C-alpha cells in the first residue's frame, strides 16, 4: 500500500490553496513534545511547511472543529479525515451541525495511531523525540535511541479499529480500506460478566479519579450543544459539586446517555482524559445494547440515518423483551 506522507498532504493542501478552492487547512502541529500533536488552522503553505505534521500521533478528529470553522469564512475549509473521523463527520451532518458546502474533505488512510503511554511503559520517562514508522524510534534522556514495533504500542481504539473505510470525502488519497470485524465489545462483555457489586467497584475506582476538567466533553464530536446542560443554570446540575461519591459518576453517566445512539465510538474521550479513565467503555456499552436490541447500527455510517433510539419501526422490541434479553 502506498503510504500517504506529510509531504503529499502539504502538496495537496498547497494545490487547493493555490486554486482558491479552500482558504484554510485544518491540520496537525507539534505541541510541546513530538508525541503531543495538536490541531491547528493553517492559512498558507509556508506555515504548513514549517509546522504541519502527520504521523503516528495525528489523533485529533477534526470533524467537531468544522462547526465553528465553517462559520468563519465564506470560503471552504480543507479538512483531512482518517476513516474513523469520517463517521463523526457524517454524524454531525446528520444533526445539521455544519454546512457541507463549506468543507473540502480529503480522506486519508490510517494504519493506526500510537499510544504514548504504552511507549512510556517500555522506555520509561524522559522521551526527547519520537519518529513515526513501522518501527518507532524513541530517543530518551537516559537510554539513547530505542526501536519499538508500532503494532505493540497501538492505541486501544486502533487495536480494535472498526473501519478502515471512509464513509465521507470529496477526494480520497491512498487506497480505500474496509469495514473490519473488531473485538471492540470484548471489554464491555467482561464488564457485563461482573456482578453488580464488582462493576460498581470498577466504575467507582475509575470515575472517582475524574477531576471534571471537561476535556472529554469538549473533544467529543457528539457533544455539540449550544449550551451544555452542565453549563445551563436552568438544568439544576450546572457546575454542581459532587455531594457524595455516587454523584461523581453522574456527569459521565448523563453524558453517556446524551450521546447514546449518536456516539460513533471514535475514542477521543478516553484519549484526552488526563486521568486515563476508559470513558469509551460507557459509550460502547450503549452501542452494544443498541446493536443487540435493534440490530446493528453504526452512527455516522450514513448521513441522515435514523438512530434506533429516535426511530420507531414495527419490528422494534417491546421493553419487556429487552429486559428478558438482558437477563439471558
Amino acid at each position, binding site marked *: 500500500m502506498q503510504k500517504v506522507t506529510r509531504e503529499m498532504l502539504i502538496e495537496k493542501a498547497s494545490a487547493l490553496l493555490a486554486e482558491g478552492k479552500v482558504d484554510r487547512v485544518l491540520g496537525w502541529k507539534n505541541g510541546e513534545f513530538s508525541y503531543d500533536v495538536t490541531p491547528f488552522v493553517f492559512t498558507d503553505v509556508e506555515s504548513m511547511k514549517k509546522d504541519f505534521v502527520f504521523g503516528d500521533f495525528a489523533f485529533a478528529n477534526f470533524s467537531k472543529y468544522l462547526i465553528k470553522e465553517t*462559520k468563519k469564512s465564506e470560503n471552504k475549509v480543507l479538512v483531512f479525515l482518517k476513516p474513523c473521523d469520517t463517521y463523526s463527520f457524517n454524524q454531525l451532518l*446528520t*444533526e*445539521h*451541525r455544519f454546512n457541507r458546502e463549506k468543507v473540502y474533505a480529503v480522506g486519508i488512510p490510517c494504519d493506526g495511531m500510537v499510544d504514548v503511554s504504552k511507549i512510556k511503559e517500555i522506555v520509561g520517562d524522559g522521551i526527547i523525540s519520537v519518529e513515526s514508522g513501522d518501527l518507532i524510534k524513541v530517543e530518551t534522556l537516559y537510554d539513547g535511541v530505542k526501536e519499538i514495533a508500532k503494532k505493540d504500542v497501538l492505541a486501544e481504539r486502533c487495536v480494535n479499529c472498526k473501519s478502515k473505510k471512509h464513509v465521507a470525502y470529496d477526494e480520497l488519497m491512498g487506497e480505500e480500506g474496509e469495514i473490519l470485524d473488531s473485538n471492540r465489545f470484548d471489554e464491555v462483555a467482561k464488564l457485563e460478566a461482573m456482578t453488580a457489586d464488582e462493576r460498581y467497584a470498577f466504575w467507582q475506582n475509575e470515575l472517582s479519579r475524574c477531576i471534571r476538567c471537561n476535556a472529554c466533553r469538549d473533544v467529543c464530536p457528539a457533544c*455539540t*450543544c*449550544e*449550551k*451544555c*446542560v452542565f453549563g*445551563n443554570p*436552568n*438544568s*439544576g446540575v450546572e457546575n454542581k459539586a459532587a455531594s457524595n461519591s455516587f454523584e461523581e459518576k453522574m456527569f459521565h453517566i448523563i453524558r453517556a446517555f*446524551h*450521546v447514546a445512539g*449518536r456516539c460513533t465510538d471514535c475514542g477521543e474521550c478516553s484519549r484526552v482524559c488526563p486521568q486515563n479513565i476508559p470513558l469509551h467503555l460507557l459509550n460502547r456499552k450503549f452501542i452494544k445494547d443498541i446493536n443487540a436490541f435493534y440490530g446493528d447500527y453504526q452512527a455516522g455510517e450514513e448521513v441522515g440515518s*435514523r438512530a434506533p*433510539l*429516535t*426511530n*420507531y419501526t*414495527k419490528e422494534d422490541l417491546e421493553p419487556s423483551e429487552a429486559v428478558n434479553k438482558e437477563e439471558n
Partner: protein
Amino acid sequence: MQRIGVFVCWCGSNIAGTVDVAKVAEALKSEPGVVLSTNYQYMCSQAGQEMIKEAVKEHKLTGLVICSCSPRMHEATFRKTAAAAGINPYMVEIANIREQCSWIHKDMEEGTEKAIVLGRTAIAKVNLNAPLTPGESPVTKRALVIGGGIAGIQTALDIADAGFYVDIVEKKPTIGGKMAQLDKTFPTLDCAACILTPKMVDVAQHERIRIFSYSEVESVKGFVGNFDVTIRKKARYVKEDVCTGCGLCTEKCPQKKVPNEFNLGMDNRRAIYIPFAQAVPKVATIDADYCTMLKTGKCGVCSKVCTAKAIDYTQKDEFIEEKYGAIVAATGFNPISMDKFDEFAYSQSKDVITSLEFERLMNAAGPTAGKLLRPSDGVHPHKIVFVQCVGSRCASCAEKGKEYCSKICCMYTAKHAMLTRDKYPDTDVTVFYIDVRTPGKQFDEFYRRAVEEYGVHYIKGMVGKVSPEGNKLIVQGSDLIANKQLKIEADLVVLAAAIEPDKSARPLATMLTASMDTNDFFTEAHPKLRPVESPTAGIFLSGACQGPKDIPETVSQAGAAAAKVIGLLAKDKLTGNPCVAHSDEMMCNGCSSCEKVCPYGAITYSDKEFRGPNRTTLIRRVASVNEAICQGCGCCTVACPSGAMDLKGFASKQIMAEVDAICK
C-alpha cells in the same frame, strides 16, 4: 411567590378510611407557598367546590392543590372550579391520594405518611406552575373504520346515516368478517347470511361510505380530529371498477388446488377467486401465491375469458392518503390455533374439527353444501362429541391457551347441538363442559331447549384425551357429577376453540398509540363508564377487538362507538391542550432529533438570525413547535440532547421539583 390553598378530600371513607386527612392537611400547612390547608368530606360536591371558591377569594389564592382521587376522575372538575373562582385552570394540581394511596394501603400510618408526601409533591409543582391558555384545532368530518366485519359494518352505517363520511378498510377481499362464515345465529336461529348480507349491500350502496377491501392501514399520524392515514390497497390484479363479478374466471382458472380459507381449508378454490357468492365488493382477486401467470408468466387464462377486460397482471400496491377526524378499531377475532392441543388429536384426525369448521360443514354454501358429513370419509356421523373451553379459562395452561372465558362458545355449542339433533335425530350428541354460561336475553331458555327438547347429553367435566382408532375417535373424559371416567366412541369431535384478537391488532394499536391488555384486546378508556373509547383521544373500539362478544353485543357496541364518533365529528373545533412543547431557541442545536421523534409532525425547522458577539449576525437552524398540532406527549423533550425542548405544565424543572419533594 404563589399563595397556595391545599384541599384534602375524604371521599367519604374511601380516603378517610385509610388516611388521616386532618393530619395530612395539618402537615401540608408548613410547605412553601401554602397559605391555607383544610379538609372536607366530598371536595367534588357542590358544597366542596363552593368552599374552594370562597377560599380563593378570602385568601387571595393563586394556586390550588387538591388531594383527592385520580386526576383522570376530577381534574377537569377542579379546573372548572378554579376558572369560576377567577384563577387560571392550569394552576390546579391533583395529588392522587385515593387510587395511588388509600385504596392500596391498609395501614393508616403508612397511608397518611404517603398522602403527605404526595401532597408535598403537588405543592412543589404548583410553586412552579404558570398560567396556560389552550388553543383550538379543527375537526376533519370523516371517520375511518378499520375492519369490515359486523362491528365495522354497523359502526360505518350508523356514522354515515348521521351524515358523515366513512371509509372502511378491510384486509380481506370482501367485507363480512366472521359472521359471513356462520350458519345460524343464536338464540333465534336465523340465518347469519340472511341478516348480514343486506347490511353489506347497504354499506356498498351508501353514498357516504367507501370500502377499501383487500387493504391495510399503513401508517397513522396526527391526533384527534386530524389524523393523517395512509392506506395500502394491495394489488388484487383485477381492476375493481371494471370487474362485473360474473365469476367466469373463477371457473376457468386451471389452478384448482388452493386451500379455501373461507371454508377454513376444508375444500379448494382457484387462484383467482371471489370468497363467496354475496361478497362485497363482488370482485375477483388473484392470489399471487398460487397464480401461475404471476409466478411463471405462463397462463393468462383468466385474462382471456374475462369479457370485461378487468385482469391486470401488472397491478401494484396502491397507497391512498386521507384525513380523518376519528378512527374506529373493529379488527375482530380469530379462533386460536389448535397446534398446542395435541391431546384432542386435532392434527392427527380430520374428524376432529373446530366449531368454526363445524359452522361451515352445516352451512348450505359450505364445502358439503350443508350436509353434515365427516371430513375424512364423507360419511354421516352418528355420534358427535363437543368439547367446550378448549383453550378458554385456561389459567394453569396459559402458555397454550387463554385465561379468559371466550364467552360465545357455550351458546354456539348449544346451537350446534340443537341444529344437529334437529336435522339428524338419529345422531347422538354429547357436550363436555366446565360450566354452562348463558347470561343473556333468551340465552338460558335456548340452552334448556337443547337439553330438554332436543335431548343433548351435557356432561360436566373435561375431555382428557381423544385418540383415533380405525374410523372412530375414542374420547376419554370425566363425568364430575357421576364421578366416573367415560370412554366414548365418537365419529366426530368438535372443539370449541378459544377466541383471540386478530393478529393485526397489536401493530395497529402501536400505530394508533392505543393501549392493549396482556391478551392483546384493546383497552377501553374506562371499563364501565367509557367502554367504547380508547384512552387515546379520537380512537374508538367496536366489537371483539375490545373483548369476546357475541353478535347482539357487538352490534350494540358498534352503535355506541358510532354515537361517540358522531359526537366528535359534530363539533367544528376542539379545544386543545395548552400543555404543549416549547423550544428555547437560544439553546436549540438544530439537530432534528425532536422532529424525528414527533408522532404528530408538530415540529419544523428554519434558519433564523441571531445576534452574535461584536455586532455580528449568526444564522442558526432552530426548531419551532406548532402548538395547534402538538399533543404534549413529551417525546421531543426526551430526545432533545441539549434540553432546549420543554413541556409547558410538565417542565423538566417541575418534574425534578416533584422528585425532590418525594425524596426529601
